[in-house]
């Protein structure tokens, strides 16, 4: 195990800069998720950490060693790839033991390590099978087994669940989390799925356009997003945004006044943010016109017109209203957010 430090890491392809100076400190044994939309540079950053991409500027340190110029094999890392990258002509056991073969590890020790890893991941019955004879989830477990047999200082996961169906993704998410809790190896995990990030991470790094938008614990990002991008990215369904300005009696949007936290000067032009789950049904509340009602069993998602803006509300109650009817809602001002109308940064 080891800590990982990225200091002012940059990457350019010719004149095109794709990573613009990333600073991240990952503590020993921490599970850090790099999350962001496609093209934000998260996989590139992971490949740079692995040594599969060179870095243009800055330093990457694993433990006390700067590894900028070290080959991947000398960084003591193990990586799980998006498409598993299993050697299709080798059995599960051979795949898992392959990396140890080049490290002059005795055959008996390799067999022991493979058996140990297979035991952890429930792969013992499949050791003699080829990857093509396994399901997606089993292949993913083999890829993880290949990583853990080496007992590396750092695990790197590059969108490992993106090829699995939704149900299996949830199962594998739990298995990866359990594996980390058991081994306590420092882990850097890349995903574009904010639910994966929220449920697995000790710390989330939100990236956009090759820059860090915010670093923090999952609930910190959820409760106090640093800017409008993070607010919109974290949480599902996304936070609602309503443009307007701060008035004497609340936030004045087009056709409606909404409760907002105190402290922001009156007249400030801003973007009002409220999460769908932070609306509460109340007959005496602010009136909103129902546009769509989507019952989901445990909750009801309602698309409604608040003033002139279409917003989504998520209610634990069952909403019986029909499109065109109005419902009353209330909003807890403590759970609302204000962002600068120009640069999107959090106000207050």
């Amino acid at each position, binding site marked *: 195990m080891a800590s990982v430090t990225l200091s002012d890491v940059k990457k350019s392809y010719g004149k095109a800069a794709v990573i613009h100076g990333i600073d991240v400190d990952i503590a020993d044994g921490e599970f850090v998720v790099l999350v962001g939309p496609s093209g934000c540079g998260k996989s590139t950053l992971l*490949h740079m950490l*692995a*040594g*599969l991409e060179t870095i243009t500027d800055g330093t990457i340190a694993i433990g006390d060693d700067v590894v900028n110029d070290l*080959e*991947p*094999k*000398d960084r003591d*890392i*193990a*990586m799980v*790839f*998006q*498409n598993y*990258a299993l*050697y*299709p*002509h080798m059995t599960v056991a051979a795949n898992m033991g*392959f*990396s140890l073969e*080049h*490290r002059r590890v005795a055959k008996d020790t390799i067999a022991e390590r493979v058996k140990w890893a297979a035991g952890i991941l429930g792969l013992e019955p499949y050791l003699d099978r080829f990857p*093509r004879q396994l399901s997606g989830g089993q292949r993913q477990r083999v890829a993880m087994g*290949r990583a853990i047999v*080496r007992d590396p200082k750092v695990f790197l996961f590059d969108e490992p669940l993106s090829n699995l169906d939704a149900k299996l993704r949830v199962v594998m998410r739990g298995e990866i989390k359990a594996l980390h809790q058991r081994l306590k190896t420092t882990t850097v995990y890349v995903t574009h799925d904010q639910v994966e990030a929220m449920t697995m991470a000790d710390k989330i790094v939100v990236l956009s356009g090759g820059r860090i938008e915010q670093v923090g614990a999952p609930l910190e990002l959820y409760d106090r997003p640093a800017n409008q991008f993070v607010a919109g990215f974290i949480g599902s369904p996304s936070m609602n945004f309503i443009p307007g300005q701060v008035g004497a009696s609340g936030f004045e949007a087009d056709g409606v006044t909404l409760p907002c936290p105190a402290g922001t000067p009156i007249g400030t032009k801003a973007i009002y943010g409220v999460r769908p789950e932070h609306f509460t049904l109340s007959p005496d509340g602010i009136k909103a016109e129902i546009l769509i009602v989507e019952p989901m069993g445990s909750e009801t998602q309602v698309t409604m017109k608040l003033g002139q803006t279409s917003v989504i509300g998520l209610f634990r109650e069952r909403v019986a209203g029909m499109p065109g009817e109005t419902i009353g809602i209330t909003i807890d001002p403590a759970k609302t957010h204000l962002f600068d109308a120009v640069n999107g940064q959090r106000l207050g």
Partner: protein
Amino acid sequence: MTVAAPPSTRKARKRPFWTMERRDSLAGYLFIAPQMIGITIFVLIPLALVFWYSLHEWNVLAQTFRFQGLANYQTLLSDPGLPQVLGATTIFSIGLVIFNMSLALLLAVLLDQKLKGITLYRTLFFSPVVVSLVAWTIVWGFLLQNNGGINALLASVGIEGPNWLRHPTTAMISVIVVQVFKNVGLNMVLFLAALQGVPRELYEAARVDGTPAFRQFTRITLPMISPTVLLTSIITIVGSLQVFAQIAVLTQGGPGMSTTVLVYYLYQQAFQFHKFGYGATLSIVLFLIVAILTFVQWQMRRKLVFYED
């Protein structure tokens, strides 16, 4: 109270002859018909005729065509030249296959790199494949003459070159090299396509695992391109057994019978000595050798070739 359903206005239809299944079958047969007709006319009928001719004594000049049963096959077994011909054919085939496939794979690996002007290099190495075989061989014939370009080049660095086409060993090497340089581009392109089909993530995983480059090649690349290796080995072996023009232009089977391979011997028997029946018998021998070798290679694929699906 229940109300009876009104009678259906639809008429019970008789099952038509051209059901969807039959139409599909007909379409399938029509699709393969051109190929089957071509194979029948240009492969199966000629093969049957060659076998029929091999049972005859056929001299075009004397205009004799006489059935003589297996006499040509008995002649074949006692032909004193045949062991030497088969020996030359074996040496040529083994030399060509090893040299061609090794060079093709080496070139493919080199040309699989991200280099400036790589397309130009690929075109350059492939271009001999599209050059006329006879023209290519004639040019090489000039170069390999005792006072040709190659010996002139060697002389410029103080080396006295041999008379390449007039010495048994160098003659065989020469025809192999000329043939390899002519066709290596084809195998190279096939290997290159196979190399480019190997997922890059496998190499990235190998790099993270610390797999040395040569081991990556032997343990990952070769198994992954093994179907192409099998294909090219079959094509190259079959092609090597059918070599004719290079021998006819460069050595005419000489010196002695050192480069007289089976097809050239067949040509001599049929068209120089006018023994068409015996030539046909040699054709049958060639067909059997190619068929057996291809069958053996195909059987070996289970052991040597990895197929993902």
